[in-house]
């Protein structure tokens, strides 16, 4: 991670995955009330990078997550994936970007309760071409990679919180994304399980050269990252490179 102002994509061409440049996001509440959530944020995430985004609630963390996840477009400025500005992409193109480049891990896991662990992991593969057999194989490989080879047919309610988050991680990596976007991944877990989950995410990040962006309000989680972006009131107030 480095300062977006100082380092243009030209400097490290080929390594830049995602670039935020002077990003603002303003929400309109009613007719005349505008709430600025992000007020000009710039940074770069390289391939295989490990970045923590910290800040208290209301700092603009969630807004930034939505922008990095291509779930939302900035009001002003640019979010570029592989050099392409998301503001210039259509809705279907954004959907494809999310499907092929990004894996989400949420605080509350977001597993579908009526599906088995395997079918939950298959979910993102449904939205891309491929045979059922291939999807199954990939899902089972992903579940095995997160240590749940013996829990494939369990439903979320039959799994512990840590196991559920592992299923969610398997779902995030099953598409071989370039970026894993984890939003408070340990927020609903006890500290030991949280530790395991972070270790798992970090292992994936190093072994598969996947960029990992963790959004958290916990300092000790943030400290593990290679670099940290601290947000306050919609602005970056501190950056620490490890």
């Amino acid at each position, binding site marked *: 991670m480095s300062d977006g102002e100082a380092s243009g994509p030209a400097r490290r061409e080929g390594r830049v995955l995602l670039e935020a440049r002077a990003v603002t996001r303003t929400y309109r509440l009613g007719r005349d009330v505008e709430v600025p959530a992000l007020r000009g944020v710039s940074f770069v995430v390289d391939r295989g990078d490990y970045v923590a985004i910290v800040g208290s609630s209301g700092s603009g963390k969630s807004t930034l997550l*939505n922008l990095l*996840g291509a*779930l*939302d477009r900035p009001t002003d400025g640019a979010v570029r994936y592989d050099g392409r500005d998301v503001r210039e992409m259509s*809705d*279907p193109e954004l*959907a*494809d970007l*999310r*499907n*092929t480049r990004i894996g*989400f891990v*949420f605080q509350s896991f*977001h597993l*579908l309760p*009526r*599906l088995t662990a395997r*079918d939950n992991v298959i*979910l*993102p593969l*449904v*939205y*891309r071409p491929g045979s059922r057999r291939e999807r199954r194989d990939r899902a089972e490989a992903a579940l095995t990679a997160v240590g749940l080879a013996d829990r494939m047919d369990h439903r979320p309610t039959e799994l512990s919180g840590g196991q559920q988050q592992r299923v969610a991680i398997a*779902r995030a990596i099953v*598409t071989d994304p370039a970026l894993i976007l984890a939003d408070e991944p340990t927020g609903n877990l006890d500290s030991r399980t949280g530790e395991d989950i972070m270790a798992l995410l970090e292992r994936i990040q190093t072994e598969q050269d996947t960029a990992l962006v963790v959004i958290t309000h916990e300092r000790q989680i943030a400290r593990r990252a290679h670099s940290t972006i601290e947000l306050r009131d919609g602005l970056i107030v501190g950056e620490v490179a490890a």
Partner: protein
Amino acid sequence: MTVREAFRVAMQALAANRLRSALTTLGVLIGVMSVVLLVAIGQGARSEITGAIEGLGSNLLFVLPGDGEFGQGPTRSRFVLDDVDLIERELPGAETRVAGYTVGAEALQADGARVNATVLAVTASYPRVFNRELARGQAVTESDVVTARRVAVLGATTAEELFPGQDPIGRNLTIGGIRYRVSGVLARIGGGGSPFGPDQDRNVLVPITSGQRLFGTDRLDAIFVRATSTAAVEADRSTVERALSQRLDEDEFSVISQDEIIGVVGDILQILTIVLAAIAGISLLVGGVGVSNIMLVSVSERTREIGLRKALGARTRDITTQFLLEAIVLTGIGGAIGLGLGISGALLVAQFAPVPAEITGWSIALALGVSVAVGLVFGVLPARRAGQLDPVEALRRE
């Protein structure tokens, strides 16, 4: 996402909510069932009635009072027995081809047995014009007519009811209090009565002259002419019209062919069938509104799921397709089961009720087509709403 994949996802979602899916389906099911069943009954009634008219024989001309326009009040007949002679004089071979009658309902009594029957006061030619065979005894003869003899030819069922286990020939009975003697018994036609026509095996034939005396009239209700062939129907019609216009005004009688009656009656019953189908269609529509309603509930319940799917790469179209398919599967299943029940119901009706039911291809196609269309039409709104959900908002929803 392929349609097959969307279909699988839709089935998963429906299976997760079995009771609700079943109840939603029920609305469409009942609608389709009523369409199929009511159309079957309407069609059955139509072929029953047209069949009954055809059963009178072929190539018949009906000479009826009035100008033959529908929608007019009953017209008093001005036909008399002389009109039959008038026609007979003009038509070649007419003695066996022209018949007239007057109809009344009377109480019949014999040996304490008492039944009500339709009494047809007929000319001697009646059995030949209408192909009625005699089982026993003697038919109404020309001399019975001339002398206004009080003899009666009983339908098979009436004969059995009045004289159970006995030979009725030569026995006495009273018709409307007047004494008659049984001269013959008609052969059984079978088929029984229907709500649309009396049982012909319960008819009683008496000579036209004595019948007119019985009913206190000198009129005929109708005259019938049998053409020798289908090709001769039109020529006979002109002859009959010419003959009658010597005595009657143009609007006092009309000559209608059997085919015309079948056509008109068939048309009326077809309209009846369509009206029945339309009424049943309304219940199908209500079922569709139910589907729409439940799909909207489902969309709002699954907002988080929709947000998640979008985050994982589902396009708007993928979500829309999924919910649309859910609606179509719901109505399609309802349609298929409703069709099965409707057909079973129609077969049951045909078995036990006096109205036969007839299943037609078009009602089946209509019911299935409409139920799928209902799913499509009523699924579009919820499906679009689902597809257009903002993933950020949707994921945040508790």
